[in-house]
Each structure stands twice: as structure tokens, then as C-alpha cells.
């Protein structure tokens, strides 16, 4: 199971305290993970890294709304598989809930 964290660097739509807390706990957790500056930015550039993530099997993604994440990957030509992907929403959920899901 891979973990992907999106920092939403290019906008302030994810509450700063939530994304900082998630990153901090992920950093301290001893788990391997990939962190990207901004999934929207990568999608706009059709970054080949998205394809590597989408093709790589089960993944937990800490970012924003699942519908947005799904279609951002699709827009980049890297559709996520229908199964095995969990998107955790840092715009709505608490850091505690997200980290619990990420590292379990």
C-alpha cells in the first residue's frame, strides 16, 4: 500500500493546520510515502509521475475531495484504478482521522 500526500502548495483551500498536522504525523510515523507539492499543478502539466502513482496498485491519497482527485488524475491521462485507491479529504476531515486511515 503506497501513501501519497498533496501539499496543495499553489492555493490555500486546504486548512493549513490540517495539512501541517498530517504531514508532521506522517513524517514521524516511520512509513514510506510520496509527497507532492500540488496535484492540480501536476495534472495541469500531465506530469508522468501521476501515471506511475496510478499504475502502482493500492494507494491511499491525502488530498481533497475524492471526486476532484479522481478527475484530476483522469485529466492528466493517468486514471486511477476503480479499486484499491482511498482518497482522504483534508478539506473536510480532521488530521487525526486522516492520519489514522493513512497509517493503519
Amino acid at each position, binding site marked *: *500500500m*503506497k501513501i*501519497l500526500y498533496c*501539499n496543495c*502548495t*499553489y*492555493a490555500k*483551500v486546504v486548512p493549513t493546520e490540517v495539512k*501541517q498536522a498530517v*504531514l*508532521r504525523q506522517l*513524517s*514521524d510515523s*516511520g*512509513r*514510506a*510515502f*510520496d*509527497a*507532492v*507539492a*500540488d*496535484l*492540480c*499543478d*501536476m*495534472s*495541469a*502539466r500531465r*506530469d*508522468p*509521475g501521476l*501515471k*506511475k*502513482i496510478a499504475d*502502482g*496498485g493500492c494507494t491511499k491519497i491525502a488530498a*481533497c*475531495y*475524492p*471526486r*476532484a*482527485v479522481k*478527475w*484530476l488524475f*483522469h*485529466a492528466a491521462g493517468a486514471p486511477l484504478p476503480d479499486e484499491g485507491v482511498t482518497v482522504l479529504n483534508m*478539506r*473536510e476531515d480532521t488530521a487525526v482521522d486522516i492520519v489514522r486511515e493513512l497509517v493503519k
Partner: protein
Amino acid sequence: MSRTKGKNLRVLLYEGPGSTPLENDARYQALSSLLNNGFEVTRPVEGQQVAPPDDSPLLILGLLENSPDVAANVEVHVRNLADVSALDAACEVRDETGARALEAWKPWFPVIDFDRCTNCMQCLTFCLFDVYGVDNQQNITVQNQDNCKTDCPACSRVCPEVAILFPKYAKSPINGDVVREQDVQREAMKVDITTLLGGDLYGSLRTRQREARARFSTERDESKALLERKRCLGKLKKVLNIPDEVLMTLPSTEDIEERAARAKAKLAKRQAGSQTVKDSRPVPSDKEWGI
């Protein structure tokens, strides 16, 4: 250079054999500063999975005792955190490799939810900035992301199926939140631009222009014209959440009519089952579109 081109530098925060593990605070500070400056960061842990390398340049950072052996078909750079900060090292390697720097832009472009889209082409007809196009399969596509006007969600407001997302938008469901039945039914989500201005948009604009010319030729009151334009633009701004900057760059009536003709031609080609429809005309500059 286009804001949507170029590769990011990927940084590998290495703490495996041949290195000293980072303190928790140091690791977090490195991660945070790198991400906030546009870098991608991977923290590998032995026996656990991360994304494989793509063709982006790679920087390995760590408190390294020896240079780690790397078997990768990509450009690899190594820096020791004992000698340099994570951010300084990444910026240096970014400059060396020509990787993309953090840009002062908000990634703002429409993302289509194809579970909802019915391919009605209303967005293609509506957008005045040539953001939308038609692909080889005659489906709607986002073809010119860079043309999209930051913070303008107007096309998503005219989409009858709430199928257009702007993930950086504040409000639901345009931000990607779940679409509820009431969202679809809500007046704001069913704005039909053709009725907004009292019938056919382009016909309405032509009529408005004719009436304005006739009226102003007798009244000669330019202040009234300005007030009328402000009133109409205010209405558009309120109903469709169009930012002021976008309203200031709206094209002239003639340009709109020309674009309508081009959109109709694209639709006609699609309906005729033609192959790729490519729009080769250059987009007018802001100066050409000045009002």
C-alpha cells in the same frame, strides 16, 4: 514559457543504510520547506512501497556517510544534509537541471467529471477563451488550460449537469464535493446563459447593439451606455461568480459573434462525424479583447 510545462525536481529523503537517520524535527522541516517551494519529496523506507522514478531528475538528500548506489535510468544528484540545507540543495540542483521552479500561479482550469458529463457542449459554446475543444472521439475536452481565467468558475455554473470542477474553488460542489440533488436543481446550477440575457445570447447581443446604436445616436448620452454596461456586467458577475478581471477582458460583440460562428462550426463538424476538430486560430491578446 507555459505555466503548464516542465518537470519538477523529485527529492528522495534518504535515511537507509550508509546514512544517519534524521531527527523528527529536521525531517519535518525539510519536507515542509521542500513542498512549500514546489518540490516533490519521497521518503523511502526499506520494505515499503513508494512511486517508482519517472523521467524527472532526482536529488538524493540525507546525512550520508557514503554516496548511495543508485540504479535508475534518470539523472541523479546527491547532496549531504551535513553540508547544506534541504531547500538550498534542492534549489541548487533545480537550477543545474533546469527543472521547474515554483510559479506564482494558481493551477486554475476546468476538470470534467465524465461520470456526469453528457457531452452537451454548452461549455464549449459558452467559454469565450477557447479553453474547450473536441477530441478525436468527438467528446468535449479541455484543450487550452492556460487560457482559463483564474478564479472564474462561470462555465461550471452554466453546466446543466454540474460536471465541471475547479478543485481550487472554495464552494461546493464546484470544488469537487459530492453533487447532491438540490445542487442540480438549484437555480444557480441551472443558469442557462441563453435565457439569462433574454433568449439567444448572440441574437440578444446583436439586438442590444442595434438598440443601443439607435438610442445613443439620438440621445448621445455616453454615460447612460456606461451605466447600462456596468449594470449588465454586474448581473453576470453576480449570477456566474465572474471575477472583475475577467469581465474587464471580455471580447467585443463582434469577437463574440465570430467565436459563436467558430463554436457552431466545431459543433457542425462533430455532428457530421468528422475527425479531429482543431482550432488553429490564435487566441486574441488581451489588448485585442479590450473593452
